[in-house]
């Protein structure tokens, strides 16, 4: 969670610094900012924030369910002791199975955003490399580069981005490897229970 917040701050700094990069009366007159310069920080900001926010919301909800699951032993005892004829309708017990499938469904959804996140990361790295090349005077940009302070924080941001991506890729690769076994298991159980229905 630390990296997405740091990344958010850096991208906001880039956006805020954009008008200051071409002050009036600057000589020689700068060219118009590239679309790449204008849109990269907001895109990186939106995609990373969305990815982190969805993850955060899910984990917060899921952790509260886990806590409820851990503390409902007494309620389950009460249910077992209650009259079999109680007219109470379905209860809100948290089951282990539900917790498991909640993660599965979340990972299936977040996978799409993760794909977009990877493309956005390339955009972010490209933006950074362009700034570095300008700094080292290997290319000339028509638009002045961002202030050195922001570039320094972006340098740290790119290191964090690589570490963050490696961490996320490890999670997704491990998840995909394990996840590959689930459909076969689900199909077998389904066929055994519903055989003859289809």
């Amino acid at each position: 969670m630390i990296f997405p917040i740091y990344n958010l701050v850096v991208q906001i700094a880039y956006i805020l610094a954009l008008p200051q990069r071409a002050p009036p009366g600057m000589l020689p007159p700068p060219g118009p900012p590239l679309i790449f310069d204008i849109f990269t920080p907001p895109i990186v900001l939106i995609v990373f924030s969305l990815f982190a926010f969805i993850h955060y919301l899910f984990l917060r909800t899921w952790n509260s369910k886990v806590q409820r699951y851990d503390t409902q032993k007494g309620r389950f005892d009460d249910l077992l002791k209650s009259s079999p004829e109680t007219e109470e309708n379905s209860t809100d017990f948290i089951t282990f199975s539900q917790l498991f499938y909640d993660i599965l469904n979340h990972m299936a959804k977040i996978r799409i955003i993760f794909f977009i996140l990877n493309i956005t990361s390339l955009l972010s790295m490209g933006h950074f490399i362009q700034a570095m090349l300008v700094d080292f005077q290997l290319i000339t940009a028509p638009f002045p580069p961002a202030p050195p302070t922001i570039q320094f924080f972006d340098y740290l941001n790119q290191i964090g981005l690589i570490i963050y991506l490696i961490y996320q890729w490890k999670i997704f690769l491990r998840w995909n490897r394990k996840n590959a076994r689930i459909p076969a298991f689900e199909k077998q159980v389904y066929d055994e229970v519903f055989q003859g229905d289809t």
Partner: protein
Amino acid sequence: MPPSSYRSSNLIIQKILEGILRADQQHTLMKQGIVKSHLIKYCGLKAVVAEKYLTKMEKAGYIQSHEEAWGDRTIIIYNITPLGRERFSWFIKINSEMG
């Protein structure tokens, strides 16, 4: 049948197996099994859906039921079979491997 349909069915099946096993672990009123109405409440299912799944699972050999006297009425108790226990243990194994 799309994977999502298998998934929603599997969730209900695993919930039912889990409910019976959990009752076996706690067995406050009886040593084995769980009363049908309690199982339905634990799983949070509608009666019609629960009836469909319980019938199918019993036919598949995952669970078995028997009637017991309860006052002047009879209640249905569900137990898990070795096959049902094995299927749930697969599920647990996959989950534990996910870490």
